[in-house]
């Protein structure tokens, strides 16, 4: 199974559904993700999250997925602002700092590679 699909299966279902709806995954990843649920599963009828809820779950969830969501424009500006605030509440770690850097660059309208701190 692809790494991103595994990550998506580990996060909260409502967040995974939101990311799926926003087109975060490639067609192959999407197909693989959908295959892992039985037919008629209720996971896809999860309610749409509000901007703060979405940002909160992103901040708490998988850093790789969150970074990909930010870099692929799956996070709206008001959600980005909340994500930035919520990341600052968290305990500092290298992963959190990298994601914060990605979010800051996105807020400034820049994308692409992120320079690591020394």
């Amino acid at each position, binding site marked *: 199974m692809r790494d991103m699909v595994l990550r998506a299966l580990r996060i909260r279902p409502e967040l995974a559904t939101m990311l799926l709806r926003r087109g975060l995954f490639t067609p192959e990843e999407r197909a693989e993700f959908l295959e892992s649920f039985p037919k008629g599963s209720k996971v896809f009828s999860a*309610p749409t*999250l*509000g*901007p*703060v*809820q979405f940002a*909160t*779950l992103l901040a*708490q969830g998988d850093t790789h997925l969150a970074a990909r969501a930010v870099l692929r424009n799956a996070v709206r500006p008001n959600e980005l602002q*909340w994500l930035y*605030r*919520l990341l*600052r*509440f*968290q*305990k*500092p770690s290298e992963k959190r*700092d990298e994601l*914060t*850097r990605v979010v*800051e*660059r996105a807020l400034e309208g820049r994308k692409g590679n*992120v*320079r690591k*701190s*020394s």
Partner: protein
Amino acid sequence: MSENLAETPPPAALVNSVVKNLCALAARAWSKRWIITFTAPTGVGKTTAVDYAERTLGFDHQVIRCKQITTRYTLLQALALAPGEKWNTHGRNWMRAADLYDRAVERIRQRPYLLIIDESDRLRLDCFEILRDFWDEAKLPMLLVGNEILTEKLNRQHERLFRRIRVRFEQRPLREADLRKVLEVMSYTIADDEFAFLWKLVGGSPGFAEALLENANEIAASQGAKRGIEALEGALRFFPTLRAAA
């Protein structure tokens, strides 16, 4: 008369203990030409206090808001260049950085000001070294604002700067009445049971309280109901660290 009016700070939405202490320390750092650190836990309202100080301080000052992407070069640019000014000197980065540094020192010598750095706990090692150089060369007074990590970081990694700090102020979280007042000013109408629930979870941190309340508002709105304890409990699902404290 007009001068007096110009020096009078505009009325603030709410001047709580965090704002008062930060402004008092800024004034002291400026008058004594000291380096002062102001530390407080995340979410207490440091950035709000810095915003207030930026608008109201009656002497020359410059505020730098640190980010994860702040580098020595961006720091030098902020101190050496006027807002909107472009730096067009070509050459290798270190040469350009040296030019910027000289220019920043010259600016400080000609017209001293207080440097306030918000979230300074996120500064990198080389940025702290630059700050020490500014202090040594131009006696630049500074107010370094950050969370608990700032003291630890300075103590462990930047002893030379640490020895030059005259006051290390630790701000306590807000008291119950203060938190209630802050949330009221933030336009939240909170019932007593909701506030008791919030206080138990977040203590004196309006930032955390706001995040929890906004989540609860969205949960309540999705159910077409008014926010209540159930919505706040639902919002707790999103905060594993707070859930452990509950």
